[in-house]
């Protein structure tokens, strides 16, 4: 049964079917062919139930807030501030890009939105300064992955809902690994700049910097609301998301007067579309998950095939989880991977006494890496669509970044404090 389901799913996936189809078709095939006692209509029940957890409402709210900020001025103001402060150092432009991706990650929960918001304005500047196309594109794709670790994070929300882990704790735990990757990327950007012999930008004067900082002050209120609000225990992630939307509206409509209320309706339509595209995958993933757990495939896979149990030891379990999620995301959307693999692997990790927040952070890092990794990582296809570059050009520069990200995973698994330090500080024991 497992082989038939998996074969059907991969076949439809590789043929280019919309991703909801392979999942749903595999679930239908399993119920009709192999589960005589089950009613196929249960799949619909699972789909409707799958999108209902109220914690998931944080997802469209964060997308909405980021959409408003990107159409308005907030995103541009942040980029401008970062470039005036660090543009003049060696490798300033790529470092600016990486820092901007991280900062934008604090406004938005998805890598795709970050590729567009930061890559759109900064990519032409990088190319103009003399950076190669492959380096530039790879930098933007991979640095955008940091957005998935910096709160808010859509991946973490879905992981938290599926596994029953505190989303607030996951958010705070993502900050450390996110910053670690930022540092690695900045070092690489510096080295690459020296090797390509590219001169730094002229230094901004202090009055210019003060002005840029003042202009960016209100957009910087976002991370304060999201991270500060959750840190201080004021908001749940869903509430922080709703307050972000309100703040974005006040900023862009009230203060900057960049957007009119009529445009907000159009942004809401765009957010609704993105939300539906994500949530239909959540629904299909829920149906698929129900089928495999009904057939008791997880325990077969974990116990018999992988030989994994609570006694397997920390390193083995974490390495298996990391590799499974990483490989999964090389092929399908991270949300789908988290929905399907989490119920399979989470129980083993918890039974072995591993902190669920640590598991969630490692999983988020792996899906971030996987979605930027050839052959089929979905960020690559976003970049192809947004920058209109051929596939091979887009992936050529990725290997050094992937090596750094794998190094970051090893560091995170070996030293969980990277993630858990801030969490323990915020939430105590």
């Amino acid at each position, binding site marked *: 049964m497992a082989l038939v389901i998996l074969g059907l799913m991969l076949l439809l996936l590789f043929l280019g079917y919309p991703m909801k*189809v392979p999942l749903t078709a595999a679930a239908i095939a399993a119920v009709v062919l192999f589960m005589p006692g089950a009613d196929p209509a249960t799949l619909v029940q699972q789909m409707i139930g799958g999108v209902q957890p109220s914690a998931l409402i944080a997802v469209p709210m964060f997308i909405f807030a980021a959409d408003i900020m990107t159409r308005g001025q907030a995103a541009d103001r942040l980029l401008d501030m970062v470039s005036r402060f660090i543009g003049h150092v060696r490798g300033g432009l790529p470092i600016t890009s990486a820092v901007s991706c991280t900062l934008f990650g604090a406004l938005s929960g998805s890598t795709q939105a970050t590729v567009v918001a930061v890559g759109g304005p900064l990519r032409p500047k990088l190319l103009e300064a003399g950076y190669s196309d492959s380096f530039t594109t790879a930098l933007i794709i991979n640095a955008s992955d940091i957005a998935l670790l910096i709160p808010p994070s859509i991946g973490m929300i879905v992981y938290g809902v599926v596994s029953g882990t505190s989303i607030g704790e996951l958010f705070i735990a993502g900050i450390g690994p996110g910053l670690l990757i930022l540092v690695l990327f900045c070092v690489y950007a510096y080295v690459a700049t020296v090797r390509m012999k590219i001169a730094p930008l002229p230094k901004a004067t202090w009055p210019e910097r003060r002005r840029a900082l003042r202009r960016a002050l209100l957009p910087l209120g976002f991370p304060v609301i999201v991270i500060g609000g959750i840190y201080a225990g004021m908001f749940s992630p869903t509430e922080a998301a709703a307050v972000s939307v309100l703040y974005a509206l006040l900023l862009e409509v009230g203060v900057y007067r960049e957007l009119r209320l009529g445009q907000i309706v159009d942004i809401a*339509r765009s957010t609704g579309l993105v939300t*539906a595209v994500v949530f239909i*995958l959540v629904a299909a993933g829920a149906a698929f998950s129900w089928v495999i757990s009904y057939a008791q495939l997880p325990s077969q896979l974990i116990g018999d095939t992988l030989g994994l149990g609570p006694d397997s030891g920390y390193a083995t379990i974490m390495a298996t989880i990391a590799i499974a999620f990483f490989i999964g995301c090389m092929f399908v959307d991270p949300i789908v991977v988290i929905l399907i693999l989490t119920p399979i692997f989470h129980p083993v990790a918890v039974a072995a006494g591993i902190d669920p927040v640590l598991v969630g952070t490692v999983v988020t890092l792996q899906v971030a890496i996987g979605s930027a990794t050839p052959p089929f990582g979905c960020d690559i296809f976003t970049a192809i669509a947004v920058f209109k570059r051929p596939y091979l050009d887009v992936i050529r520069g990725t290997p050094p970044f992937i090596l750094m990200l794998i190094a970051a995973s090893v560091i995170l698994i070996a030293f969980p404090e990277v993630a858990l330090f801030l969490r323990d500080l915020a939430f105590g024991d």
Partner: protein
Amino acid sequence: MPGARETTGAIFRAVTKLEEVCLAWGMIGIASLTIANVFARSLFDSSLAFAEEISQFLIVFVTFVGLGYAVSQGRHIRMTAIYDQLPTSWRKSLMLTIALTTSAMMFYLTYLSIDYVLGTVRALGTVSPALQVPLWLVYLSAPLGFSLAGIQYLMTFFKNLVADDVWLSFDKKDEYDELPPADI
């Protein structure tokens, strides 16, 4: 039959417009209710149970209405690494197959969801905890969305059959240029 083609186009645009209105106001509704709930909790220390409930109804509604709309916009996530390398004639045949079979699957899901919503849920008479709304009414979004998506895929199939080029949906060609960056 030029008349039939124009009528189809007009109906397509009207349905799309309606879907857009539903999605936009669905999102605005969820945002307003969630914000109201934050104020209620922090100012008056009491959560609005009905606000959370309506948000949940709306997210079900947005998901399934958006299912059809995303088909019409050619926006469902696909893994196109292999598909994109194929010559146009192959892509055309593949798109015809994908549209027809996906349409069939959507109609099967419509059938299943009618069975579940009008059969099981209505017979059980389940109501929502705060507002006492019969859930089968809320869940009608599912058959509605599946059937709209099925029709959209069927229209995509016929479009590819009669028109030149490869079409992702009834009025979206298979090319990257049409992706508006701000819409991601």
